[in-house]
């Protein structure tokens, strides 16, 4: 697989405005990549949930910490990496929100939705740096345009 990526890379503050900024970048990239409306929504929501995790649970709204966001459009896939400066989490230890005893829980659905909406989801702890999640969505069409960084 030959990589010919169009890349947007940005460092963001640990606040909710950064979630919107990442969503906006993702929205433009999804359109340029030719994803249909349903897949656009899925990718945007996965990014939204991942950014919420990074801001709230990873960096805990700490002004001194940053979030590194990188989105790459390849001919066959869209790949997003989001890195925070938190201690990380084990995605396999999370409670299943579909179990009957968890259905009425207020939280605990974010990672479930990311997994449901993306083709691949990986979590990597980076010792001394933080935690990085990778989201991957395969692209069916090849009629993508270049994306531009604002």
């Amino acid at each position, binding site marked *: 697989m030959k990589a010919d990526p169009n890349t947007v890379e940005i460092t963001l503050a640990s606040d*909710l405005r950064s*979630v919107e900024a990442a969503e906006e970048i993702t929205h433009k990239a999804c359109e340029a990549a030719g994803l249909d409306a349903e897949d656009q929504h899925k990718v945007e929501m996965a990014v939204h949930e991942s950014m919420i995790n990074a801001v709230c649970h990873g960096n805990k709204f700490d002004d001194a910490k940053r979030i590194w966001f990188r989105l790459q459009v390849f001919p066959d896939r869209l790949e997003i990496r989001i890195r925070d400066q938190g201690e990380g989490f084990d995605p396999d230890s999370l409670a299943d929100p579909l179990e009957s005893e968890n259905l009425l829980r207020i*939280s605990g*659905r974010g990672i479930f*939705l990311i997994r449901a909406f993306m083709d691949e989801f990986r979590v990597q702890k980076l010792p001394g740096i933080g935690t990085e999640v990778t989201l991957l969505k395969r692209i069916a069409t090849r009629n993508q345009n270049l994306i531009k960084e604002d």
Partner: protein
Amino acid sequence: MKTTTRQVDSVVVVDLNGRITLGEGCSQLRELIRDLLAKGHKKILLNLADVTYIDSSGIGELVSGFTATSNQGGELKLLNLTKKVHDLLQITKLLTVFDVHEDEAKAIASFEKGATA
């Protein structure tokens, strides 16, 4: 998010417009339901027709409202789900929890059949 509250028979219908996401949208919904319950309104119908986006926190807020209302002997139901919201509630199995309607008059009538005061 904008909200409009209206009374239809014994039911309070809340028309929601915009995003229900972590932050302002969730806080608004939480306070609104809390206020309604505090004022003794226990039949609540949330009209989600104009909800453009809902995230996992917004879903949690709907669940919280449902639980709070049920705990006070009331009912909270949903009206006019968009496809996006419907799909989210489906994959999270919450369609098995919420009473969801597509017709307001029928939704109002479904409360009337209940025994909730």
